């Protein structure tokens, strides 16, 4: 009798351990790269961290399947390596020997991926669920491309520059025309003729007025 009870106990405990093994059909491999992510501030992976992981995963299952009360004991972990990788399977709270389907686990993890990552201060790359590809974040795409804005600013400045450069000499010319009288314009014509007679002198237009009077 005692032997039968012992055999039953052994069987049941064996059965309990069988669900989690490497390459389990409903399990996932997890890989953590804590030192890569955190460098000097890396924490040591120990039993407590593993407990946190199981608790976080139970939280993810609870959030996804509303109503079913997943507990830490429903997350079974095995095959830990020094690399910090391990396999896990999720048992259903309604039926302790039955495993939750792979697809359901995947959806639960996808939904709460951000929360799981931040619980461990890791990212999609450093906390990997082998087989669950992270959803890619789309690159930021503003409505108006920023380059058009800069282009507009530059063209505006350049356009203003063209107008200033083209208009300013016309404005100056107009101003000069109003000030000058006809006499001034005639004098210029006479000046050159006057100074031509004194070839040995220095040809200097600004003093031509005086020379004219002197010669007369």
């Amino acid at each position: 009798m005692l032997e039968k009870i012992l055999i039953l106990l052994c069987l049941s405990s064996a059965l309990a351990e069988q669900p989690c093994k490497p390459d389990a059909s409903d399990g996932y491999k997890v890989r953590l790269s804590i030192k890569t992510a955190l460098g000097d501030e890396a924490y040591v992976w120990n039993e407590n961290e593993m407990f946190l992981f199981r608790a976080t995963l139970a939280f993810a299952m609870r959030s996804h399947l509303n109503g079913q009360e997943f507990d830490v004991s429903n997350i079974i972990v095995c095959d830990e390596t020094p690399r910090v990788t391990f396999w896990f399977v999720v048992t259903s709270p309604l039926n302790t020997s039955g495993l939750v389907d792979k697809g359901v686990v995947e959806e639960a993890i996808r939904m709460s991926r951000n929360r799981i990552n931040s619980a461990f201060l890791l990212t999609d790359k450093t906390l990997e669920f082998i087989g669950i590809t992270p959803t890619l974040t789309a690159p930021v795409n503003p409505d108006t491309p920023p380059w058009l804005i800069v282009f507009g600013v530059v063209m505006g400045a350049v356009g203003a520059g063209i107008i200033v450069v083209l208009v300013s000499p016309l404005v100056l010319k107009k101003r000069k025309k109003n000030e000058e009288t006809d006499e001034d314009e005639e004098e210029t014509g006479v000046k050159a003729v006057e100074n031509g007679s004194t070839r040995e002198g220095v040809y200097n237009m600004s003093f031509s007025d005086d020379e004219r009077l002197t010669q007369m």
Partner: protein
Amino acid sequence: MKLKLPNPGLDDRIPSHGDLEKMEKEEAGDRPKWDNKAQYLLTCVGFCVGLGNVWRFPYLCQSHGGGAFMIPFLILLVLEGIPLLHLEFAIGQRLRKGSVGVWRSISPYLTGVGIASMLVSFLVGMYYNTIMAWIMWYLFNSFQDPLPWSQCPLNANRTGLVEECARSSTVDYFWYRETLNTSTAIDEAGGLQWWMVLSLVAAWILLYVCSIRGIETTGKAVYITSTLPYLVLTIFLVRGLTLKGSIDGIKFLFTPDVNELMNPSTWLDAGAQVFYSFSLAFGGLISFSSYNSIHNNCEQDAVLISIINGCTSVYSATVIYSIIGFRATQKFDDCMGNNIWKLMNAFDYPENNITDSNYNEVLAHLNQTNPEIIQGLELQTCDLQSFLSQGVEGTGLAFIVFTEAIIKMPVSPLWAVLFFVMLFCLGLSTMFGNIEGVVVPLQDLRLLPRTWPKEVFCGLTCLISLALGLIFTLRSGNYWLALFDNFAGSIPLLVIGFCEMFAVIYIYGIDRFNEDIEFMIGHKPNIFWQVTWRVVSPLIMIFILIFYFVTQISKSLTYLVWDQESENFPTLEARPYPSWINVMIFILAGVPSLAIPVFALFKFIQNKCCKKDHNDFTVDTISAKIQMSDKMKFTQLDDRLDQGPHVPRLA
């Protein structure tokens, strides 16, 4: 060598020394003048120092034996660059005209040289400003964080990155797809890319506003465009030296390999680089120095500008390679990190068990124990030297390699803006010289009414260049630009440069030239100038021209395409040109070069059949007009004095 070809009527065509002194004192106002010497020097330095100093010289230096390349470069700088520069400065200052005017004064048969200069300036200006448009596009895109060339866009299903981007790299994708939207062959024109057209319009309008009145406006602009690049280079040097791996880059650049000196192509490339780097034969330098006062010391200027140009090349090579060293080290670290990651994950080693130092031993050990797993991992070989020597010249350097380095630096948008502003200033100051080389001959040729103001000439040039430059905004635009760069900006310049030398020394006459220089700067040019002008520089030019010609002819005409279907993607694939490209090559290289003999022939025929008077060849350009009108007034006065007492029209 006292060879001098007969040149009748030369004295009638050029102002004599006495006339020059008079013009200097009168300050005859029609010809523009520099505000001060600094403006002139900055403009010339800006014209000479261009994009080639930043992206051609470092590549040549590194690929031809590093520090050893300095030897042929410096030797040819002294024997070829400085004499030619001095020659152009002196002849422009003496004859006081733009390129067409100068050569027409020396001999009417040489007008073709000036016209060839104008054509080359026009063609080069067309494609050079397209590069400016690309720089502006990148500059406009630098005002955002993260930079657009740091990320791949997602594909349509949002399941992964766009395939083209994932296979090549983010910077490649941004350059070839989002900027150029390049097609796979030069015949596949594609359509006009509207964003490129906008950038091109911006580039030409900006150039127009800066050069609208010739040196009056460019003279003000060069205070910024010529000095800013040096400031930015210094900032980059300081930044670069604080980055990891920069010293490797500088060491790679300057490590001498003396065996390269035996290779003739090293000397050929050095000679070509010196020649193109000085922007000789474009006609712009002749124009610029013609605005100087007659007694300006052009010898000093030539030596000074040559030294500045050479030093800038070396300085920018140092800066560029410090950043390239940083990029190569980053890529090497990424490559190693990737391999270590794969090994760690495959064999479940704890993190930091495999480091860079023990990687090789661990790999060897694992290869012995589990060779099949190692095979399956597809580890890449990481070699720092190969990363350092990745194709780093031309647009590839600026838009692919350097942009990649920038995204790895902290505060990337700042560095991107600084870098592209520097490139923009370098290019803009060179474009000033190009525009000068087109507009002034256009005015001198009197094809359009002389009463039109300079603004109109400038505007027309910019407008026509913009219209024709739209070809570079097609999808195949990049291939067209490479074609222009290879053929329009190479052989014609060498031909024109040689003709210039020959014309001044043997047609104008070295004796007369020596006297002119003695008149201008006070002493005759010494034996160095005599030897280089008469013998050494023309010989070097001929050698380079012949070798260049031979290598171009013997090379099969291929060009590099970006083709996703090719086997070596993302490496560019060499494809032969279609046969009709030979017509284009003839137009680009042949027409300017042939303009010289064709025009000489045309003038000869005109002379013989129309039997015009030699007096008609007297110069008709603006500065001479004043001279002529003064002469006329002197003769009028003589007539009047004969008539009787002079009665003033006033009072």
